[in-house]
């Protein structure tokens, strides 16, 4: 009897799981204007990730959602396409930061500096701005959108170089000191961009740079949200693959060992400074590449997009999702961006409607959309208390080819109560 009940509940669980995985796509397709349908759609991606099923089936399902359903809806309603692109950009940034903070354990408060560098790197040359300091005889600005791809690569490389130059003196510091120095560095970069409009106008100062040339692909102008959606999607998939492979490699293990016990790692022959630099550089180059895409997508950038709060925001995504966990970084980025752009806004619209109907009287000072930062803080505190390892904690996997009688995965924090108590 109990056995039957157990079986039954398992079947119910499975059916409801699959329902949650597939239904939102259909609802979202039918109701492209609905905010909740969009949020459910994103949530269902994580349901698919978590559901117990063949990886190939899960992959196909996710691919259909991202490559077919989302663009199809996006043609109806570009707003959500824009939001999901924004999510994608932050996913890449969060994964980049996760390599530095989560994998290697280097607290970096200045991650946004590299993002800003990438954005300005493209923006200066893709507007008429570069004409201010490069004579027209040499080159004509803005450069054509075909250059975007080259800038994407060089944005990543040069940001990496910047990370290397910063890391060289700084990575001898530990923990809190490193955090302070990187924080200062990010502020310097931002203030530099803010003030480099005189004597020679490099960055156009606080007025920002615009209009930035959209990318071109063999003469085809890529300036629609759908184009950026696909560019970001491809980059996100690449970053996920790279981060996953690094995590499971000898380099990833070296990072983890430094994070766990630096002294022991050194004694085992890990070249600690070199490995830290590598993490720093890879993280920075992810941010640089994303900066280039961000500049092209926004067509306008100014220093205020790259403030300290931005760095903190990305760090929050990593913490929320789970340090060192790639899927956690994806989840954290999605949760934070959706909370900012959709959930809180929806909630305050709803309250606004209620007060318009005279049911509730809510003064505009307590409009939830204005308390975004407070809600974040609250969520972070709750996560830290109840789930300090993050929502999707990092797991150590044995590779699939490693023959072992036992099951091949283990989650660090969820083991038998015995060990947890000790």
């Amino acid at each position, binding site marked *: 009897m109990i056995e039957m009940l157990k079986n039954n509940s398992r079947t119910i669980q499975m059916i409801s799981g699959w329902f949650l995985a597939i239904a939102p796509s259909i609802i979202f397709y039918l109701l492209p204007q609905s905010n909740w349908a969009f949020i459910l759609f994103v949530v269902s991606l994580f349901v698919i990730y978590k559901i117990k099923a063949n990886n190939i089936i899960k992959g196909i399902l996710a691919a259909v959602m991202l490559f077919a359903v989302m663009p199809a809806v996006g043609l109806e309603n570009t707003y959500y396409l824009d939001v999901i692109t924004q999510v994608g950009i932050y996913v890449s940034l969060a994964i980049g930061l996760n390599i530095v903070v989560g994998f290697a354990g280097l607290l970096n408060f200045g991650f946004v500096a590299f993002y800003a560098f990438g954005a300005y790197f493209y923006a200066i040359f893709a507007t008429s701005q570069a004409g201010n300091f490069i004579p027209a005889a040499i080159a004509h600005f803005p450069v054509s959108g075909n250059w975007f791809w080259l800038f994407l690569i060089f944005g990543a490389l040069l940001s990496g170089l910047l990370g290397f130059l910063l890391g060289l003196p700084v990575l001898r510091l530990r923990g809190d000191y490193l955090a302070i120095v990187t924080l200062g560095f990010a502020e310097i970069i931002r203030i530099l961009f803010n003030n480099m409009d005189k004597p020679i106008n490099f960055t156009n100062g606080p007025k920002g740079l615009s209009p930035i040339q959209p990318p071109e692909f063999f003469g085809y102008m890529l300036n629609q949200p759908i184009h950026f959606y696909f560019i970001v999607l491809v980059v996100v998939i690449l970053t996920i693959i*790279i981060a996953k*492979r*690094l995590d499971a*490699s*000898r*380099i990833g*293990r*070296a990072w*983890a*060992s430094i994070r*766990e*016990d630096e*002294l*022991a*790692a*050194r*004694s*085992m*022959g*890990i*070249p*600690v400074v070199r490995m830290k630099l*590598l993490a720093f550089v*890879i993280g920075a180059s992810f941010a640089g590449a994303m900066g280039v895409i961000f500049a092209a997508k926004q067509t306008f950038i100014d220093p205020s997009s790259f403030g300290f709060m931005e760095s903190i925001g990305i760090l929050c995504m990593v913490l929320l999702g789970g340090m060192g966990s790639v899927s956690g970084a994806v989840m954290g980025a999605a949760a934070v961006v959706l909370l900012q752009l959709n959930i809180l806004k929806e909630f305050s619209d709803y309250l606004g409607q209620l007060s318009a109907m005279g049911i509730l009287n809510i003064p505009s000072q307590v409009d939830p959309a204005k308390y975004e930062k407070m809600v974040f803080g609250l969520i972070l505190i709750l996560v830290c208390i109840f789930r300090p390892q993050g929502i999707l904690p990092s797991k*150590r996997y*044995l*590779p699939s*080819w*490693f023959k*072992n*009688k*036992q099951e*091949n995965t*283990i989650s*660090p924090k969820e*083991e038998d109560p015995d*060990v947890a108590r000790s």
Partner: protein
Amino acid sequence: MLLEAKGIRKSFGGLMAVDDVDFSLPEGHIESIIGPNGAGKTTFFNIVSGNYHPDEGKIIFDGRDVTKLEPDQAAASGIARTFQNIRLFPELMAVENVLVGMHMHLSAGLGSIVFNTRKARREEQRAFDEARELMRYAGLEGKEKELARSLPYGDQRRLEVARALAVKPKMLLLDEPTAGMNPRETDEMKEFILRLRDEKKVSILLIEHDMKVVMGISDKITVLNYGVKIAEGVPEEIRNNPEVIKAYLGQEAI
């Protein structure tokens, strides 16, 4: 001589932790350093393994001057160690702990990892096989996927040795390998250390408080007290040395 340390001196502020110590370890030997708490044994270890640099003195290892090497360079030259208070990588799986020790013998670079080349995959597979073999050797078979921190104490000690072996050292520094072990585990560890020397051909330098272990396996024993070497010799000589008895048991004991 595999290891030769001459006139090693190290002070912390006013405290002379190691004072003019000479030490030598021939290849294939097991030698122990003993002494009361605070005698400078671990400091001496830290100097040999590159964690500290001596104020004075010189260390020649395998024909090379290693006095100024950093720990990772010392490891690369063939010196591996364990720690008095176990220092594993707690959130990594046991097998990964061993693989970290292998790091410098693996060659996969950034490019081959990102593109997941066949060469990188092969190397990984070989490394895992080797790591599993080392774990089996250390008596940790089937515990590959356990997180290091969830292993029982004795297994953690053994895993630390396995990790150090993965460095493929010529000399192994073991800092109190039987600390906190029960008599049966201690005997196993003793046998294991002997096997390491005979089968893995590593020379072993040992800090140990358990006199049964020290007397049982050491080719030579060095006694430190307040940073000074007070005696040196085969177990029999040390056992009867009045200086040593005084250091351990006090003046009245003689």
